[in-house]
């Protein structure tokens, strides 16, 4: 899994490439936690490069969204592939997380 972090004003975009599963979730959580601990609690998870997520990936997302919200921010998802979106829907995540078509829309949502 490759994680690329990019700042766009007050929003931090975390682009993930690869699958988010039991073998990679810890690395993702550490990376996201680092961002929040560093004061970046408005996160956009760019999932355009994620082709799979298992239960471990869902737990990583939930942990991060709780973390960001406790710090006054949020984790919003962008460019989620259909196969990943189906898992998010099946597990009810689309009812607790905001999902946007692309990164720009997700970034702009923080200004609204």
């Amino acid at each position, binding site marked *: 899994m490759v994680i690329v972090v990019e700042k766009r004003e007050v929003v931090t975009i975390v682009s993930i490439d690869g699958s988010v599963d039991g073998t990679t979730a810890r690395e993702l959580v550490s990376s996201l936690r680092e961002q929040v601990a560093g004061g970046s609690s408005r996160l956009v998870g760019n999932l355009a490069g994620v082709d799979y997520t298992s239960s471990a990936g*869902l737990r990583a997302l939930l942990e991060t969204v709780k973390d960001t919200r406790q710090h006054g921010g949020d984790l919003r998802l962008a460019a989620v592939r259909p196969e990943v979106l189906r898992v998010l829907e*099946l597990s009810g995540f689309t009812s607790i997380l905001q999902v946007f078509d692309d990164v720009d829309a997700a970034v702009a949502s923080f200004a609204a």
Partner: protein
Amino acid sequence: MPPSRASRRREASDLGNEANALTPAPLPGGEGSNRVAVVIGSGSVKCAAALGLLKVLDREGISIDLIVGCSGGSLYAAMIALGRSAAEAEEVTRRLWTRELTKRRHYPSLFRAMLPKIFGFTEQFGLVDDTLILDRLQVAFGESKFEDARIPLYLTATDFHTGELAVFSQGSVVDAIRASIAIPYVFRPWKIGSHLYVDGFLSDPMPVGVAIKHGANVIVTMGFESPYQSHATSVLKFAFQLSSIMSNNLLRANYAFHNLAHHTEILPIIPQFREHIHLFDTDKIPYVIEEGERAAEQQLPYLRRLLAAELS
């Protein structure tokens, strides 16, 4: 006077129903080893996609340590656990699951529902005569018992009186399947011992918890949401629609809970059907299996990596 809750528990235990068992099964492989489970949820004929999953696991030499089936999934879980090949299972489904199953009405139920004061309503209510499906289940599974299974098998139903998930792991496979597929309003609830059971999807359409309870740490799931109807043009379709709404929401809620509450790795295999698959579209089984195989192949790299990581 009805039996107390405690006495019902004892009776259930005698029958091999683990609904109320309190102690999780030990991990035979010991700490750190993989224990792979396949959970086949409800979804009528779509559950045949599990045969495609089986093909992929077989080809890759990934062995299944336990298998759980619910509702339509109970048929395939049983066949896989009893060692039937995908081709045999496909043939069994073709012979077993046809439109004729719902052709004959169960008139006593109709009369009891319409004129309860005269005929006396009973809880064993179902609009369809279940003689044919029972006959066919007998032909398909005969006297098979859970104890005959090559892979430990768990089939689920729902206790009609308590609403609790019931898990069968001993005794007659036919009885357990019949209980597991007791579709509300369609097939009568099924009595085993002193308990009355209805379809497993009513308590958990994808019983991942059973696999967790029995020590699985890698759980491959295949289950389907119930289809919605654009128009409910009959009482039965109206009932189906309500049932779909409830079971789909239950599926999501339970699935979310199991994904988040445990450290087990749950890998959903979700076949995408370009064609509509209706309740009795057994002619589409080859296509359903193909899509199941395709969906399983897509997730194979992650499953392989996960198993390798856990074993190292």
